[in-house]
């Protein structure tokens, strides 16, 4: 059926109209402000939180007095893993409280407004990093805002009883949690994050830069065994969870769960560093990579090729 003539009549809304409506909606709190002053700036905190979860239950079975943290986790690589949000949503509907499942976090993360900077270099100084900016952007994109989020440190105390309730709810009776895990404590340091926003009309491109999050935990523990339990909870079958748990270097790899119904992902090369490219249905990509001790995330409504070109142009 030749219907091209009908497709050809579509037009993009004028920039003036889009900007006017955007301003009106922002005034009503619809757009970014609706989710707080720095929704995207929390991404690295999320990454660190995921890392914290990944490792919160992977502490050595040492005596309570042996609190010296010997191993330090830093993000060097990113690995994607698919999970079914419906599976976890079902658990939540059944009363499972996932945040508390992590264990007790002290002090809890406070909602601190980010600080704006006119100069990205100044923002970098505030965050303790050397900020790199894209030398290339697609036509139409211009820098609009640079903010820095506050750093945060916390202690996470593992609670196996809560975790066991999830395993029971999912009937994962083949999964065994490591003995001695309960009550173990890790420290998590979430770095200050520099968030640079670029806009093309209404579309936003966000570039995050920060030092690697760090998680310190006692040495000598069977990390893959617990990671396997976590992967089973996410929905991987026994063999796949085993293969992944023992293939990943858990000391330097951040596992990024990707909803099965929202995105696909693949490993990419970013100027010599391994990166993870997550392509979302209809709404662009998220690119994660790490180099020279810094983590980067680039989020934009662009295709994979443009994302990589921007990432590789950072200087």
């Amino acid at each position: 059926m030749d219907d091209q003539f009908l497709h050809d009549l579509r037009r993009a809304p004028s920039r003036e109209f889009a900007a006017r409506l955007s301003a009106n909606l922002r005034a009503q709190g619809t757009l970014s402000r609706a989710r707080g002053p720095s929704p995207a700036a929390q991404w690295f905190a999320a990454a660190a939180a995921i890392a914290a979860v990944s490792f919160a239950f992977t502490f050595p079975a040492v005596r309570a007095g042996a609190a010296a943290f010997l191993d330090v986790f830093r993000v060097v690589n990113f690995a994607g893993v698919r999970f079914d949000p419906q599976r976890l949503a079902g658990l939540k509907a059944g009363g499972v409280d996932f945040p508390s499942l992590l264990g007790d976090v002290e002090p809890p993360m406070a909602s601190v407004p980010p600080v704006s900077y006119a100069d990205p270099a100044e923002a970098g100084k505030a965050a303790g990093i050397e900020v790199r900016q894209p030398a290339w952007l697609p036509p139409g994109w211009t820098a609009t805002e640079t903010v820095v989020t506050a750093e945060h440190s916390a202690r996470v105390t593992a609670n196996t009883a809560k975790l066991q309730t999830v395993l029971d709810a999912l009937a994962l009776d083949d999964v065994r949690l490591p003995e001695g895990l309960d009550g173990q404590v890790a420290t998590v340091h979430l770095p200050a994050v520099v968030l640079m926003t670029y806009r093309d009309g209404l579309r936003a491109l966000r570039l995050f830069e920060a030092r690697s999050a760090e998680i310190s935990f006692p040495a000598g523990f069977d990390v893959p065994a617990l990671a396997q339990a976590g992967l089973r909870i996410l929905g991987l079958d026994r063999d796949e969870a085993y293969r992944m748990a023992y293939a990943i270097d858990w000391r330097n790899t951040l596992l990024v769960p990707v909803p099965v119904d929202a995105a696909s992902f693949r490993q990419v090369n970013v100027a010599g560093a391994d990166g993870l490219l997550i392509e979302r249905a209809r709404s662009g990509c998220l690119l994660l990579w790490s180099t020279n001790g810094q983590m980067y995330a680039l989020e934009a409504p662009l295709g994979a090729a443009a994302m990589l070109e921007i990432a590789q142009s950072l200087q």
Partner: protein
Amino acid sequence: MAIDGEMSKRLPWAQPAAEIDWDAAYAELLPRVYNYFRYRLGNDAVAEDLTSRTFEKAWTQRARYRRDLAGRSTWLFSIARNVAVDHLRAQRRHLPLEAAEHVAAPGTPQDHVAHASDLERLAALLQRLPAREQELVALKYGAEATNRTIAALTGLSESNVGTILHRVVLELRVAW
């Protein structure tokens, strides 16, 4: 690895059930809602006005959104359709004098089609069709909705949507 709660709070693509990423929704759906109204009503200025109303309504009604019942775009287009219906009803109630002049303008519909812009040509052709068919064309080609989404919005079966659209497009193709 029980990270769902944290992800829901932090990751842009993992919002909890009753929360919408408005930035993403706006960027993705603004052109689609705008073109839905263009195809439905054949007028850019009206399309802008009704697009604004749709997003403003969506914001005020956001508490009613339930992800388990409908996708983000389906929900927004259900609002857009109501906005279009309200607009068409108001037009019928308050038909301006200029509209009467337009009705009385000389020449056949074919003459009008031949001299109008492509969008106006389409609007003129669509006006010959029943409202349901006009709506399906606007959803399919303006809003770029899938037949499944159109079926969910209109209450028609997916196959029925496909059949009707096939027939309508053939008719439009001949007239175009």
